[in-house]
């Protein structure tokens, strides 16, 4: 008994607000706090062996020899997998059928194309034996010079950037705009390479049973991973079962299945036993993606009133020598500020690094810090307050396309955050504020934005004879709270109390929930859940309203509403019937409904859809020593309907703290000669600690968006980084008068 509803139908009987909108604590919180949540690496199927990767220490060249004998002679080592004995694959790991199929290093040959590339896998009885076996391989190399840095190779214009957008775009005549301007600025900013560094390393436990494969591994996109693995091994996707109930963070690096994860599967195949492979921290600096460095030049022209006459934004970035991902940094200038002429362009160099990948706010984060710095420089050049300048250039329609916004409460964000922060008393000139202890104090701001994206998802809803409900979708909880937010949507969709709903997710044998990425998971899988709930309720309503014995007889499907496990007559709520009674009368053990979530093509054409926010930062800078501390952050964000304010606030906090990290801390330091990353550990790869973020506030600004989807959800996962990084660096300028143009800001840049 299945009924299917399309993506954006909103049956009239659904109401929001019973579960949706409530600040529930995480439903998986108890498991996590008590250490009983089972992450991938916590699994130990019987007979399991341990695999350790041997990785390359050179950036470019060939593996000439591996001492396999020595490794095998080590006590406990069972097998060594090299290009010579690696089980055959059904597909070439270097083939690329579509832009989201990334090339993998699966021991296909002896070539080395970046440091930390896998060159062998040692499988042993214990992790210690596997690790020592890997060390005993003592690889010898033929070494070629490494290509390092933003000028390390010949530049070229990539065919597409980000998800395939044009590398060069323009509207209007930028040169004429600059020419006619009263005031102009030009500045170049550099951002470093950053690595996702989720707390949980990529891990896999793989077990084969004939041509069926069972896997525990963290994945932000179960169906995509399933399809990719099936393709590589030449088996049917349904033969691949992936369990991924919890991710210890992903940030994009677990969006696609990575090479090392597939090597774990290959190792299990080679030895015919279950195998566990967990990356060491330093091994995560290479094969699982990163945020590419950029060098961005912005030029802006302003008329006598401080109105932009032109924005030109050029970004140079880097990719690997063997695959394509180009950080779309300059595209940040497409959406925020009104200007008659906008030109964005990218070029790139190919370096001996792993392939860069989506990393929390890819393009938006890198582009935002440069754009927001430049806007600040422009405001100052015009003698205007940075907020006033942004309001003067407020985009009423999307600047690049001219499309109206589906909703845009950015003015309210500016207003509420500025008010809360106390922005009005900010002196225009830099280096004017000192606190009682003599620290230079500065206030800066940035605008946050992130597109409201939806993918495709499906969900299955069941109502059972006892009146309880079941909702299934293969959604992924990266720690963002999907287990809780989706259960809330499910409860409202089914008209049940949340405790009456059995919510299942995190497994590839459930309906495809799309990808937990692009800040689109809640909107996409949420709509699938919502529609599946609506479908099964519609089915239930049919049973009731079509039966003379029901108090709802004749009300018609539209004439009932579902709440608390009962259907009510819309025009007479004294007439109602419980789900259990309806099913009992029909003699049914359960009924099922299915729903989909997907973007609505019509509104996609018509509207520009973005979440917005405003972030204000206060920094203190030691006037002699240059040490910087962000003493206060206030952000206000408008991102459509808030499913769970507690979780949403956490997403904003996390994003904002990452913004602090972007401005002040994070950087992969690459040796200029070897191309090896020198700080591939969490002691030296700095991210903020608690002492770096003493006060972070996120305000939720009300926003109704009738166009993005029926639930009105945009997305909150990534927007917090944007705006914040700029706000911090602008505050540093305001405190010191020194304009940081290289990130992270270093002590030496502040010494003056």
């Amino acid at each position, binding site marked *: 008994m299945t009924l299917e509803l399309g993506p954006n139908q909103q049956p009239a009987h659904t109401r929001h607000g019973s579960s949706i909108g409530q600040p529930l604590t995480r439903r998986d919180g108890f498991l996590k706090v008590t250490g009983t949540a089972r992450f991938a690496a916590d699994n130990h199927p019987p007979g399991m062996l341990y695999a350790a990767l041997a990785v390359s220490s050179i950036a470019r060249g060939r593996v000439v020899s591996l001492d396999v004998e020595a490794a095998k002679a080590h006590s406990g080592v069972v097998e060594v997998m090299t290009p010579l004995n690696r089980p055959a694959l059904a597909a070439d790991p270097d083939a690329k059928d579509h832009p989201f199929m990334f090339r993998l290093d699966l021991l296909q040959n002896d070539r080395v194309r970046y440091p930390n590339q896998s060159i062998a896998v040692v499988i042993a009885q214990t992790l210690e034996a596997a690790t020592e076996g890997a060390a005993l391989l003592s690889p010898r190399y033929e070494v070629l010079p490494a290509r390092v840095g933003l000028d390390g190779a010949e530049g070229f214009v990539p065919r597409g950037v980000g998800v395939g957008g044009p590398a060069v775009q323009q509207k209007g005549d930028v040169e004429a705009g600059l020419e006619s301007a009263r005031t102009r600025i030009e500045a170049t900013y550099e951002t470093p390479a950053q690595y996702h560094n989720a707390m949980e390393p990529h891990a896999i436990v793989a077990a084969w049973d004939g041509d069926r494969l069972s896997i525990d591994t963290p994945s932000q996109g179960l169906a995509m991973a399933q399809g990719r693995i099936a393709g590589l091994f030449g088996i049917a996707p349904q033969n691949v079962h992936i369990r991924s109930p919890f991710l210890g963070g992903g940030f994009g690096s677990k969006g696609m299945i990575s090479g090392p994860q597939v090597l774990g599967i290959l190792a299990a195949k080679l030895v015919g036993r279950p195998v566990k492979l967990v990356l060491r921290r330093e091994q995560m600096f290479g094969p699982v993606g990163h945020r590419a460095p950029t060098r961005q030049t912005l030029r802006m022209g302003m008329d006598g009133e401080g109105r932009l006459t032109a924005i030109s934004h050029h970004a140079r970035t880097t990719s690997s020598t063997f695959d394509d991902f180009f950080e779309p940094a300059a595209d940040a200038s497409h959406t925020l500020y009104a200007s008659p002429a906008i030109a964005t362009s990218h070029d790139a160099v190919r370096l001996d690094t792993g392939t860069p990948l989506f990393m929390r706010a890819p393009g938006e984060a890198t582009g935002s810090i440069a754009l927001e710095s430049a806007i600040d420089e422009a405001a100052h050049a015009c003698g205007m307050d940075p907020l006033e300048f942004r309001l003067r250039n407020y985009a009423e329609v999307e600047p690049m396309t001219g499309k109206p916004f589906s909703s845009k409460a950015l003015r309210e964000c500016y207003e509420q955050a500025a008010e809360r922060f106390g922005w009005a008393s900010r002196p225009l000139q830099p280096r004017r504020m000192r606190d009682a*202890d003599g620290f230079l104090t500065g206030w800066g701001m940035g605008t946050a934005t992130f597109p409201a994206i939806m993918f495709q998802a499906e969900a299955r809803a069941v109502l059972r004879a006892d009146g309880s409900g079941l909702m299934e979708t293969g959604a992924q909880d990266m720690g963002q709270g999907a287990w809780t937010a989706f259960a809330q949507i499910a409860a409202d969709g089914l008209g049940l109390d949340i405790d009456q709903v059995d919510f299942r997710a995190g497994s590839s044998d459930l309906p495809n929930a799309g990808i937990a990425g692009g800040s689109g998971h809640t909107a996409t899988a949420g709509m699938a859940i919502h529609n599946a709930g609506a479908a099964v309720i519609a089915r239930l309503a049919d049973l009731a309203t079509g039966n003379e014995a029901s108090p709802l007889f004749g009300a018609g499907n539209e004439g009932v509403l579902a709440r608390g496990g009962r259907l009510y007559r819309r025009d007479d709520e004294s007439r109602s019937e419980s789900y259990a009674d309806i099913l009992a009368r029909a003699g049914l053990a359960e009924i099922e409904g299915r729903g989909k979530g997907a973007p609505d093509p019509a509104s996609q054409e018509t509207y520009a859809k973005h979440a917005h926010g405003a972030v204000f930062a206060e920094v203190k800078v030691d006037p*002699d020593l240059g040490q910087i501390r962000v003493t206060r952050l206030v952000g206000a964000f408008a991102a459509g309907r808030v499913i769970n304010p507690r979780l949403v606030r956490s997403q904003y906090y996390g994003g904002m703290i990452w913004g602090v990290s972007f401005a002040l801390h994070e950087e992969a330091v690459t040796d200029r000669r070897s191309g090896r990353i*020198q700080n591939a550990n969490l002691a030296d790869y700095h991210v903020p600690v*608690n002492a770096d973020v003493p006060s972070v506030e996120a305000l939720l600004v009300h926003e109704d968006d009738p166009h993005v989807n029926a639930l009105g959800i945009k997305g909150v996962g990534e927007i917090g980084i944007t705006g914040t990084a700029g706000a911090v660096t602008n505050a540093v300028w305001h405190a010191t008068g020194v304009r940081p143009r290289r990130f992270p800001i270093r*002590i030496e840049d502040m010494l003056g």
Partner: protein
Amino acid sequence: MRDFDYVRPATISEALVAAAEPGSAYLAGGTNLLDLMKGGVTSPERIVDITRLPELNRIETLDDGGLRIGALVRNADLAHDPAFAKAYPAVAEALLSGASAQLRNAATAGGNLLQRTRCSYFYDTASACNRREPGSGCSALGGENRLHAILGWSDACIATHPSDFCVPLVALDAVVEIEGKQGRRHVTLEEFHRLPGDTPQRETVLEPGELIVAIRLPAEAASFAAHARYLKMRERTSYAFAVVSAAAALTVRDGKIRAARLALGGVAAKPWRARAAEAVLLGADADEAAFVRAADAALADASPPGDNAFKIELARRIVVRTLMSALAGTPALMPALPASPFSSLPGVRHDA
């Protein structure tokens, strides 16, 4: 990790016998040694676990008024010992500015002295490194070296000693008590660590198998309690090694400096006692001008082996600031952000 023997002696003499075998290493808190072993930087054949030697676990006041810190006293226990923090506030502040609470709970006093450099090439076994592999070369020269040494370095090695604890200790004339086959000997902390010269692999004067049993502070060290500070510049507010740090201790009477102690951290392969600066300070008026002269004296011989010239100017400024805050007086409460330039921000003090 390679297989190794593990022994757990019950007495100091058993420990010395066990460690007499070549390839032995003492295990204390393990916070540095185990990381190095996992990374293949060191591969001892025998681990001599000294954590069950109770006599190394004590903090004792000596008859002459000095203090004796057992080698196994945990960094956190020492810093939080109220009598210790009161008498040697700069040492307590330095300890609390190091690593994280979890690491300080594990790390020992002796281990802290013997922690190895954080030079990334030392950890990266694919790089040449004279300290790890004598004669192989120094990858930091010509490489990523903005955090490396500015004093006392050689062409063989430009690494720094990362300890915070050692900086006020060396300023306060601490002495290392060492036990070996030949019996007990005492070495000043200033002489304990060696500059690299041509033999950067020889980091201290310890002979193979020798055990640190205690660190002593002379009676005089407590006389600075009212004017002793530690200041540490880091790339984040907490949980980072020093870019440059300084410990300063003063005795001031009638506006004149009667005694001065100054040491720098993060600048050399050893905690750097700035004796020339102390000479400048002695008898001078206790004011910023004198501190600037002292800073110039402290850094007179400094030079950058690479991209770290900024550390010289930074060190000068830190010397001045640390002396200024020592002059201002030791705060009554341990700052919530120990040794941070922001330790004075309102609302961040708590009783350590």
